[in-house]
């Protein structure tokens, strides 16, 4: 089983890529309305492979093999100066990388110590994939959700002229996403980080004739680029500090060639080969490799690691739509609903969470960075929940709810404890199910309502669309965190982790975050059920755009809804019960087998369902029920109460704030976009009227000089002769002087 891991690992991204190529080449002419078949089959294959991979990884863990690395080919390599010098000598102290060069040191050692020639560390980047628990979980989740979404989309997008284009993009996205979670190198992570951003851009702008869609796609790309700016800075700093960007350890073996050809380089990435002393070569210690993690302070304690963490956090904030870079996600709802479900709820937006989970050892080195992660997460969760209260667009409510839930995940990861990290990843996993479900349900509603998604336009759909109604209700219950739905278990774990951290460090920010999270949970339940009641209860209202569409969606769409609803009901309880995710007292759980997370394992031994956990669970349930109750009161029982509450909020200005999304878009526009645009116009003006004018002045100088002497060339032959004669005289005069 274990020996299949490399093959599975390669197979999982390759299938979607092949499907993307097939659809892109054949889609327009040959496949047309059948374009979903290759993609659906490929994704189903990937999904199967991912499940097998999970089992394979699990089995390998019994033999204490937690990390599997596959090297495909060398992407780029800039050899270090001198054979074998570089990474292994890289000093982890800052500023690093002053290595003594052996050739030089023979000459004059006294001089060398003072003025050694700095070596550029070898830059070698292989295309490397890895499999460990974290990757396996992400792969399983991504391929499963995307398979369902593709099946759903084959009904949803049906009849669109860009049918094949949609499926080609989705397949490309799944390829990029699976690569993103399985690569073993920061550069490749960045590569696919941007690649999923591209797919998101293309899919948001799928209906590019809609100006709003085109603008939203661009906004998403640009805001993500701002995040990537931070991510890139973080990656560069990592490289200059540690001299490598690989996650894993590797061993570089240079085999000199006999006949004068260039030496061949063999790179071992298999952990066993790396640690085998019989294989010669220099070991390069990856950032999350065994060697480094075994150190006392693997990343030092300095401000550099904090800077790196914060810069990576900027990247994560961009991708996972955290404040202040969250502005793109609500706009991204201009894309087709399956895209919102797949990319902007379940998979791509969790890449930031994945990044931080992957970098847990880095964050562990900087308490400050951890606090920032938690604070941003908690703040974003609250902010997005507040905005979601007053939105009327069903998909935007869900988008803000996604932002809010992602905030919860950040909050959990920021605690840095075993429980926190698992809770964050657990929530990521369960959230993928119920949020995809909710978005697909919203898509189903939108499909029936002829593209109308404004909650003021329709209502009372529970009889027209029973399956959608029930599945949506399941999603809402899961999102609100009602026992025994999936959301309850994961959200509860997060709240418990934060509460635990707060009790460990009294007086720290975690105490406030804990209360904030509880309040956010209340808001979540309220806005979720507000949307639910408005859409499915009350009197039946159908907008005229719906026409004859106003009926339940076809089976190809409701099927995935049902499957996801079952998932939303069961996944949380199942994993809680088996302890596969969160672990038990004696068994750390599957996720914790990830090599980079094992360090956390030792910290918490006697954790589990302690008394505090139970209290938290009780409070959170009460809070969620209160939220649902309030929503019921406002939108079913006493509509007048809702209106008076809104009036009250309006008089305080709160309603405007929430409805206007706290005017963050406007603030961004006024503080960043407009000044830059004005600067651009100003510079363009300067370019023309200053810089080019100076250039032209250089041209004008000889011209002016010429103009002064031009009259001499009057054309009169005798004048020329006179000048000639006078000149000769003058010459004679000077000669005879």
């Amino acid at each position, binding site marked *: 089983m274990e020996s299949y891991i490399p093959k599975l690992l390669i197979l999982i991204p390759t299938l979607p890529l092949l499907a993307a190529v097939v659809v892109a080449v054949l889609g327009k002419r040959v496949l047309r309305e059948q374009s979903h078949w290759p993609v659906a089959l490929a994704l189903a294959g990937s999904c199967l492979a991912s499940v097998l991979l999970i089992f394979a990884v699990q089995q390998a863990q019994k033999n204490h093999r937690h990390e599997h690395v596959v090297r495909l080919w060398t992407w780029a390599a800039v050899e270090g100066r001198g054979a074998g010098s570089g990474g292994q000598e890289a000093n982890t102290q800052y500023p690093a990388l002053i290595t003594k060069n052996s050739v030089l040191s023979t000459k004059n050692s006294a001089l060398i110590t003072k003025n050694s020639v*700095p070596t*550029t560390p070898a830059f070698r980047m292989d295309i490397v994939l890895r499999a460990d628990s974290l990757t396996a979980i992400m792969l399983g989740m991504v391929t499963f959700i995307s398979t369902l979404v593709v099946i759903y989309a084959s009904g949803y997008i049906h009849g669109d002229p860009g049918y094949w284009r949609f499926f080609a993009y989705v397949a490309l996205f799944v390829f990029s996403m699976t690569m993103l979670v399985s690569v073993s190198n920061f550069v490749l992570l*960045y590569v696919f980080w941007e690649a999923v951003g591209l797919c998101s851009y293309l899919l948001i702008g799928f209906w590019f004739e809609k100006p709003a869609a085109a603008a939203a796609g661009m906004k998403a790309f*640009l805001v993500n*680029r701002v995040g990537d700016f931070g991510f890139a800075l973080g990656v560069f700093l990592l490289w200059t500090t540690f001299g490598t960007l690989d996650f894993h350890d590797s061993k570089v073996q240079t085999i000199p060639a006999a006949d004068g050809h*260039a030496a061949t380089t063999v790179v071992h990435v298999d952990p066993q080969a790396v640690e085998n002393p019989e294989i010669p070569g220099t070991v390069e210690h990856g950032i999350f490799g065994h060697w480094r993690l075994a150190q006392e302070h693997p990343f030092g304690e300095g401000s550099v690691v904090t800077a790196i963490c914060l810069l990576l956090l900027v990247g994560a904030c961009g991708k996972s739509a955290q404040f202040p870079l969250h502005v793109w996600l609500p706009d991204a709802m201009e894309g087709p609903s399956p895209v919102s479900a797949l990319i902007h709820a379940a998979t791509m937006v969790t890449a930031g969470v994945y990044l931080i989970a992957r970098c847990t050892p880095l964050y562990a080195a900087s308490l400050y960075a951890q606090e920032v992660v938690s604070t941003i997460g908690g703040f974003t969760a609250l902010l997005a929940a507040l905005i979601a209260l007053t939105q009327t667009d069903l998909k935007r409510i869900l988008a803000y709810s996604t932002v809010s839930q992602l905030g919860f995940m950040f909050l959990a990861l920021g605690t840095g404890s075993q429980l926190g990290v698992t809770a964050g990843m657990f929530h990521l996993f369960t959230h993928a199910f119920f949020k995809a479900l909710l978005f697909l349900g919203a898509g189903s509603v939108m499909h029936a309502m002829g593209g109308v998604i404004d909650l003021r336009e329709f209502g009372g759909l529970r009889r027209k669309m029973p399956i959608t109604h029930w599945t949506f209700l399941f999603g809402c219950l899961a999102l609100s965190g009602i026992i025994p739905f999936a959301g309850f278990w994961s959200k509860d774990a997060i709240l418990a982790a934060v509460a635990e951290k707060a009790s460990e460090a009294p007086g720290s920010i975690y105490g406030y975050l804990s209360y904030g999270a509880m309040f956010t949970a209340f808001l979540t339940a309220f806005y979720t059920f507000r949307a639910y009641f408005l859409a499915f209860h009350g009197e039946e209202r159908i907008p005229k755009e719906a026409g004859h569409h106003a009926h339940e969606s076809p089976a190809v769409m409701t099927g995935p809804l049902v499957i996801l609803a079952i998932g939303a009901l069961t996944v949380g309880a199942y994993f809680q019960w088996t302890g596969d995710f969160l672990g038990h007292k004696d068994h750390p759980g599957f996720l914790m087998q990830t090599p980079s997370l094992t360090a956390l394992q030792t910290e918490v031994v006697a954790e589990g369902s302690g008394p505090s956990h139970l209290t938290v669970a009780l409070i959170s349930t009460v809070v969620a029920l209160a939220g649902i109750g309030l929503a019921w009161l406002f939108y079913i029982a006493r509509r007048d109460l809702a209106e008076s509450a809104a009036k009250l909020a309006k008089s305080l200005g709160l309603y405007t704030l929430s409805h206007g999304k706290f005017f963050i878009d406007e603030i961004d526009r006024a503080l960043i976009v407009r000044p830059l645009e004005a600067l651009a116009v100003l510079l363009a003006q300067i370019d023309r009227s200053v810089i080019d004018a100076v250039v032209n002045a250089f041209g004008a100088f000889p011209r002016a000089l010429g103009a002064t002497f031009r009259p001499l060339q009057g054309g009169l032959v005798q004048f020329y002769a006179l000048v000639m004669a006078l000149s000769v005289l003058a010459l004679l005069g000077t000669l005879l002087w």
Partner: protein
Amino acid sequence: MKTLLLATLFLPAVAATLTGGGRMQARCWALVASLATLVGAIVLVAGFPIGAEDFAGTHWHWFAAMDKALDIQFSVGLDGLSLWLFALTALLLVVAVLVSWEAIKDQESLYYRFLLLLGTGMLGVFVARDIILFYLFFEFTLVPLFFLIGIWGSEQRRYAAIKFFLFTLAGSVLTLLGLLTIVLWDWNSGSGHPMTFSIPELTAHLQAHSMPYHLQVWLFLALFAGFAIKVPLFPLHTWLPLAHVEAPAAGSILLAGVLLKIGTYGFLRFSLPMLPDAAAACMPWMLWLSVAGILYGALVALAQTDLKRLIAYSSVSHLGFCMLGIFALNRVALQGGALQMINHGLSTGGLFALVGMLYQRYHTRRIADFGGIAREVPVLAFFMLFMTLASIGLPGLNGFVGEFLLLMGMFQRAWGTVATEWTVQYRVISVLAVSGVVLGAWYMLSLVARVFFGPLRERKHTEPITDLTLREVAALVPLCLVIVWIGVQPKFFLDRMAPAIDQLTGQAMCAADPKEELAQRRKGASEQRNEEMDDILKSAMEIAREP
């Protein structure tokens, strides 16, 4: 291979003299000639052994006077640096011919003659191994392009052509003076060897006996005048947007794709190897100029309303990245900078070709006149988006590799070396440079969004718009293939480039690293050279030359 290089080099020129006849005949002939050139270049690339310094070299005494004391050679050869630029030129020449196919409607045979002559000129610049020969080709490229812009350009063509010609000529005269001074200094420096114009020999001599520091700085400035205008480095860039806007599409392609690279190539071939101390001393200034170009070009591009102007300013920004990579003076950055030269040629060449195709269909270059045309010309829109993504450095395509490597090198310079008084500035520069990537995405994507997306704009004239023809697709597909190739497997390109760049810039890289002795030496310009220092440089060079 020798014959092949010579044949490839002169094939376009010979074809130019034979071109004639009607429109069909002229353009077919030009296409055949450029394709043959491309085939020659591909064979040369395929046969290039990694690490070769003088591949397919030919060295004739061209004219020698004073009993060979003055020995000007006809000397051509390829090394890792020239190789890719040579191949790029051959590729873009084919694209240029295909793009001109329908666009040029008068005096075709004359047009293709100039185009082919320009081809030989550009190929010659990159293979010349003799200073006089280099300068000859260097100036020779100006003449055909002058006529291409001046005759087949748009409204302001005369002004643009003259400005382009004079601006670049003014700088290159200083460059010639500088190069001749190097030759004379080398001759007079007392080693007893005859006067040589051979670039490799001069490089070797100067690396063994470096010039006095002050002389180096003056010469660096002289060379800078010519090369920086060619690049063009901010603030010497104003000829570029004008020339691009007025030039016919093929002219823009070759101008952006190849001619700008002559500037960066000049820095890599002459300034860094021959004047390493000066290059190292000027590094902060050059880095500031580069990063100013990056940001300035990007911001000004943001405010443009003309397609070609926008792309022209984006060139200023991208070439800023190239220069940043070159003058970060370490290995990773130099590799990235050199690769970025090729990348920019491919993606911007493609963009200019596409703008030419748009112009041919819509007869306008104003961005505001377009809107939503992705519905009408989906294939064109696809290629435009592709080239845009390549140009903004999307991973998986070529732009990313170059930008990533060179920024990584810049960070190495800023954070990874011993702190000097410049370190803070380096850090500011590197962060600013990364922010240029964000701006780049902004202006390019808003261009695509404004031109291709949104609702289709009503037009006054009603002639039917056709999507790309097979010929146009054939012009773009090779570019796309190479773009993806570099993006997915840059190693193939870097491996061939690396030895040459190491060999050329090893000394400058050593000089750029902060050392007490070197600082002392710079203060006392004409002092005796520090023997120990010399040894260090020499041994460092040996290490650098190791494959």
